[in-house]
C-alpha cells in the first residue's frame, strides 16, 4: 500500500503539471504547423514558419511591441519616482496628517483602477491624454501598493546611516538618493518585475483609452487580431499569441528564481 502511494503522488504532481502546461504546448505546436495539420493532430507533419509570416503581415506588431515597451517603461519610471518620494515621507519623516493620508493611500488598494474605468476615462480625456501612452500609464503611477512596499523597505534602514550622512553634510534628498535608494535595490527589482509583467499583460484599461495603432499595446492588438470577425484561423492566432507572449515568457524562464522571489516579496507585506 505504502509503495503504491509513493508512486501515486509524484505521478499526480506530474500529471497536473502536464495538464497545466498543455494549453501552451498545444498552441506552440499549432503555431508551427499548417492549420489542417494542427486541427487533425498530425504529429509527424512538417514544421513551418508560414503562420508567423501571415500573422506578422496581418497587424503592425512592431508598433505594438514598441507601444507596450514604452508603456511599461513610462509606468515603471513614474512609479519609481512617485513611490520612492512618498514611501520615504511615510517611513522617515514626521508631520501632522501623515497617518490620515496613509490610511487614504491604503484605501486605494481596494479602489481598483479597473472598476473606475468610466470616470478615469473622463479624467484622461479632460487632461487631453486620451489615446496616448501617458494616458494609459498615468492612473497606475501613484501605486498605493508601491508606496507601501517602499515604506516597508525604507523603514528597515538603520537610522545610524541616516545620521552619518547628515553629519557629512548631506541634504534630505541627498540622503534619500545616496543612502536609502541603493539599500532598497532588491525591493526595486522585485517591484519592477511585478510591475512590468502586470502592465505588459494589462488589457481592459488600454482597450478603453487607446484608439489607434500608434498607441495600442500588444494585448489590445492581439485581441483585435484574433477577433472572430476577422476570420483568422487557429494556427495563425496561435502564432500571434506565441509572438506576443514570447518576450515575457523567455524572461521568466531565464530568471525564474528572481520572478518567483519578486512575486513573493510583492505579495507578502
Amino acid at each position, binding site marked *: 500500500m505504502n509503495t503504491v502511494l509513493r508512486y501515486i503522488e509524484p505521478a499526480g504532481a506530474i500529471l497536473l503539471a502536464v495538464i*497545466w502546461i498543455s494549453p501552451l504546448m498545444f498552441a506552440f505546436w499549432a503555431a508551427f504547423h499548417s492549420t489542417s495539420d494542427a486541427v487533425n493532430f498530425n504529429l509527424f507533419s512538417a514544421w513551418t514558419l508560414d503562420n508567423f509570416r501571415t500573422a506578422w503581415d496581418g497587424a503592425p506588431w512592431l508598433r505594438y511591441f514598441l507601444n507596450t515597451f514604452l508603456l511599461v517603461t513610462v509606468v515603471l519610471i513614474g512609479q519609481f519616482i512617485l513611490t520612492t518620494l512618498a514611501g520615504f515621507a511615510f517611513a522617515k519623516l514626521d508631520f501632522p496628517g501623515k497617518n490620515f493620508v496613509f490610511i487614504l493611500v491604503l484605501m486605494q488598494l481596494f479602489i481598483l483602477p479597473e472598476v473606475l474605468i468610466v470616470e478615469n476615462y473622463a479624467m484622461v480625456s479632460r487632461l487631453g491624454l486620451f489615446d496616448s501612452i501617458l494616458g494609459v500609464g498615468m492612473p497606475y503611477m501613484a501605486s498605493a501598493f508601491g508606496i507601501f512596499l517602499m515604506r516597508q523597505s525604507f523603514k528597515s534602514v538603520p537610522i545610524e546611516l541616516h545620521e552619518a550622512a547628515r553629519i557629512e553634510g548631506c541634504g534630505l534628498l541627498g540622503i534619500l538618493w545616496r543612502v536609502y535608494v541603493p539599500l532598497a535595490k532588491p525591493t526595486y527589482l522585485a517591484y519592477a518585475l511585478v510591475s512590468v509583467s502586470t502592465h505588459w499583460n494589462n488589457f481592459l484599461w488600454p482597450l478603453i483609452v487607446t484608439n489607434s495603432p500608434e498607441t495600442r499595446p500588444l494585448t489590445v492588438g492581439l485581441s483585435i487580431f484574433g477577433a472572430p470577425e476577422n476570420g483568422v484561423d487557429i494556427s495563425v492566432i496561435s502564432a500571434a499569441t506565441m509572438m506576443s507572449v514570447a518576450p515575457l515568457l523567455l524572461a521568466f524562464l531565464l530568471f525564474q528564481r528572481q520572478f518567483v522571489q519578486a512575486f513573493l516579496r510583492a505579495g507578502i507585506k
Partner: protein
Amino acid sequence: MNKHINLEKRRQAIYGWLLLSPAAVLLSLFAFYPSFATFVSSLFSKKTRRKPSEFIELENYADLFADPTFWLVVKNNLFYAAITIPVSIAIALAMALWANSKIPARGFVRTAYFTPTVLPMIAAANLWLFFYTPGLGVLDQIGSLFGLPSVNWLGQPETALWAVIIVTIWKEAGFFMIFYLAALQTIPEDLKEAADIEGCSRWTYTRRIVLPLLMPTTLFIMVNAMINSVKLIDHLFILTKGGPSDASKLILYYIWEMAFAFFDAPHAAAMTILVLAVLCVVAAIQFFYLDRRTHYQ
C-alpha cells in the same frame, strides 16, 4: 534649543508634504476624485440631446434592481466567485505541497504550475480557444475518441460560464501556489520529526499541523481571490463576450458594456458604486484578518 526643535519640525512637515504631493495629486486624480464623481453621476439621469441631465436620487439604482440582466450578471459573478475561489485555492495548496516535497522533475513541475501567471489573460483565452472550438478543438477531439458528440462549449448557456471559470482557475492557481510555497518553507523541520516520532501518518501531519499553520496564508490568498473574481474578466472579450444570452457575463464586463457599448454612464456608475461597496467589505475582512494575525505573533 526649543526654537531649534520647532524649526526641525517645520522642516520635516514641509519636506513631508512636498515629497508626498506628486503621489497625492495622482491618487486624487485617478482614485479619490473618480470615486466621488462616480457616486455623483450615479444620482443623475443620462444626458440626451433633448433632455439635460437632472438629479434623480436613487432611480438609477432602482432601474438596476428592476433589470433582470443585472440580477443574472450578479448571479453569474457570485457563481464565478463561489467556484473559482475554493477550487483555485485547493489546487494551489496541492501544487504547493507537491512542489515542496521530494518528487522527480520538481523543477519542471514548479515551472509548469507557475507559467500561466506570466501570460496575459488575452493570450490565455487564445490558448484555450484552441481547446474549446467545436469540432476542431482539443476537447472535442478527445471526446470523439470515446464516441462523444461534439459540444459547443462556449456557445451554449449551460457550459459557457464553466469554460470561463476553468481559464480563470488555470491562470490564478499557480500564482497562489507561490504564497503557500513560501509559507511551507517557514514551517520548522522539528515539527515533522516530532510527528514522525509520535508515529503520525503523513496525512495526519498535513491535516493537523501543516493546514492550521497555513491558515493566515489561506486568508490572505482568499482576499486576493475575491478581488480577482471582480477583476479577472479580460478573457470574456475573446471567449464569449458575455454570451450566449448573457449566460457568462460578469459585473465588470457589464459595466464596461454599459458605459462604452451602450453609452449609459449613469447606470454604469451606479453599478460601479455597488462593486466598490462590496470591495469595501473585502477590505474590512482584510483589516480584521490583519488584526488577528498580529495576535498570532
